[in-house]
């Protein structure tokens, strides 16, 4: 009996294969979610929330850098805008519920993202990075000199308030599950975006922009939208961060923060969905562990070393390297 190469069969086989892989992924994700739900009973919730906020920040950044190929060196601006706006509103208007404050912070970061995108979109690659960096620097100077931000001291004592006016967020566990829900929602959103036809266009822009243009796509419109979504999510991360820590500070606006989110994404694995989450977890943990021990003063140089090592040796990051390993040995 001769072997048949019926295209329909092959397609079926591929779909079958994909189904199995999807199921594997679903199970992995399910386990991770369960771990996250159980985590606050084992670890300090505030620390976990810090990781989640930075993970969201990195996921937002990765949508732009990892999937669209646009290196923004100004993402700290959105984090800080979200944080300061939410902090200011919740501190000064007691009638405002927490989620309204967070939404307002996100909205302002989104608008800022639109402005950044329109100004920077005409440049590519490294020029694009420089322009976003300089724009973020403008935002930094604005926050330094504005009265309401508390300048170098930052904004303290931001009330956590009540979610929907009902759930008391002063309780760390309540706060944690709120942050977790928002984080998972955003993660799913990014997952949807990336696997949608729109996401495919973004990837094709990353791979070969002239080709995407010649296929008839209005590349700039796609890029602007990706930038705005990324800025919105980064702003949301900043808004939540200010509620969690009841504090918004200049650190979040400094260009080092823009560098840090690049490091998180790169270490975790850019262009993968889980990478930025793993990277943020890794970097926040490294910073925390170091700051507790004898190496307290060596955080910056060690992060620098990690940067160098990642770029030279592990460019696909933790998740990327694991994926490669699995493909090579188990696939």
């Amino acid at each position: 009996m001769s072997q048949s190469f019926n295209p329909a069969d092959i397609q079926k086989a591929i779909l079958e294969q994909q189904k199995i892989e999807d199921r594997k992924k679903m199970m992995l994700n399910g386990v991770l979610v369960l771990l996250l739900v159980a985590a606050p009973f084992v670890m300090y919730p505030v620390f976990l929330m810090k990781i989640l906020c930075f993970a969201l920040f990195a996921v937002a950044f990765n949508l732009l850098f990892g999937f669209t190929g646009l290196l923004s060196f100004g993402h700290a601006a959105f984090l800080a805008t979200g944080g300061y706006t939410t902090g200011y509103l919740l501190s000064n208007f007691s009638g405002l519920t927490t989620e309204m404050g967070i939404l307002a912070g996100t909205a302002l970061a989104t608008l800022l993202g639109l402005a950044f995108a329109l100004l920077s979109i005409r440049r590519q690659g490294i020029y694009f990075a420089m322009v976003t960096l300089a724009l973020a620097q403008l935002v930094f100077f604005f926050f330094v000199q504005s009265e309401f931000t508390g300048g170098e001291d930052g904004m303290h004592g931001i009330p956590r308030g009540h979610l929907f006016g009902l759930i008391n967020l002063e309780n760390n566990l309540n706060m944690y599950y709120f942050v977790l829900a928002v984080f998972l929602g955003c993660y799913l959103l990014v997952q949807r975006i990336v696997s949608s036809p729109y996401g495919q266009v973004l990837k094709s822009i990353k791979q070969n922009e002239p080709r995407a243009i010649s296929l008839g796509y209005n590349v700039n419109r796609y890029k602007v939208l990706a930038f705005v979504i990324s800025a919105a999510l980064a702003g949301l991360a900043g808004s939540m961060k200010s509620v969690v820590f009841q504090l918004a500070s200049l650190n979040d606006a400094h260009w080092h923060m823009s560098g840090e989110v690049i490091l998180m994404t790169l270490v975790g694995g850019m262009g993968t969905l889980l990478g930025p989450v793993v990277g943020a977890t890794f970097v926040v943990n490294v910073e925390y562990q170091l700051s507790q021990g004898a190496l307290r003063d060596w955080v910056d140089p060690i992060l620098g070393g990690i940067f160098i090592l990642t770029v030279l040796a592990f460019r696909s990051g933790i998740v990327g390297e694991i994926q490669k390993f699995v493909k090579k040995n188990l696939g």
Partner: protein
Amino acid sequence: MSMIFGVPLAVLSGQLLIGVINGAFYALLSLGLAVIFGLLKIINFAHGAMYMLGAMATVILFDVLGVNYWVALFLAPLLVGVVGVIIEYFLLRRIAGQDHIYSLLLTFGIALLMQGVLTNIYGVSGMRYSMPDLFQGGMNLGFMFLPYYRAWVIVIALVVCFGTWFMIEKTKLGAYLRAGTEDAQLMQGFGINVPLLVSLTYGFGVMLAAFAGVLAAPIYSVTPVMGSHILITVFAVVVIGGMGSIGGAIITGILMGVIEGLTKTFYPPASSAVIFLVMVVVLMFRPAGLFGKEA
């Protein structure tokens, strides 16, 4: 006292002088960046750290070995240049030809590392460096007082900038450099050692930064973080001038220093942001920068 636009002439000219001095530093630093970017396509985030290294080396050489200013003016850039060549040889070379973004990330890591290590050794409080005796005092120009050292900085920075521009744009060595980066293989075929040329170019760009650092040591506070403060401004200057444009970097550098000085006189709160504002405006109308070629 005579007034111009409601500002005393002495105040205005004083700020202008400071502006020109800052501009001279911007020009030296952005020139180095432009050389490195224009010829090697490396976006050197370690440039601020190299500037800092030059200033720190000047202070340390004096404290430890008693090396005076004039020797430091040659020795410190040379030492930093060697550091640059080592970095190019062992690190940057490995990512040559890949996306520029990796060079940005790699040099950013190098800057963090250097700055962090030196902060741990020397702390962040400023170190003192006294001016050479020759430059004590100044002269009265009638409408303002011009300290000798500041005049010297302006003159020597301009000389070095012009010399660099001349070397790259007008001499045979410069032609080799430009050709080597256009088509390395062809130049290899002509018997020119391109990798060596690349190392030396990076070293030279970095030397310019360190030279600026030596000049800065007697007038600015010397700390391990001094480079990170000025770096972002210098990047803005490079973007305004047009990345890779040698002449553009020099002219824009001085221009931006002056604009900053003027802003400080007329509307101080905006002085630290004005360069970035100029950058936004320039980019809206000329995305490639004032002197850049449209890509």
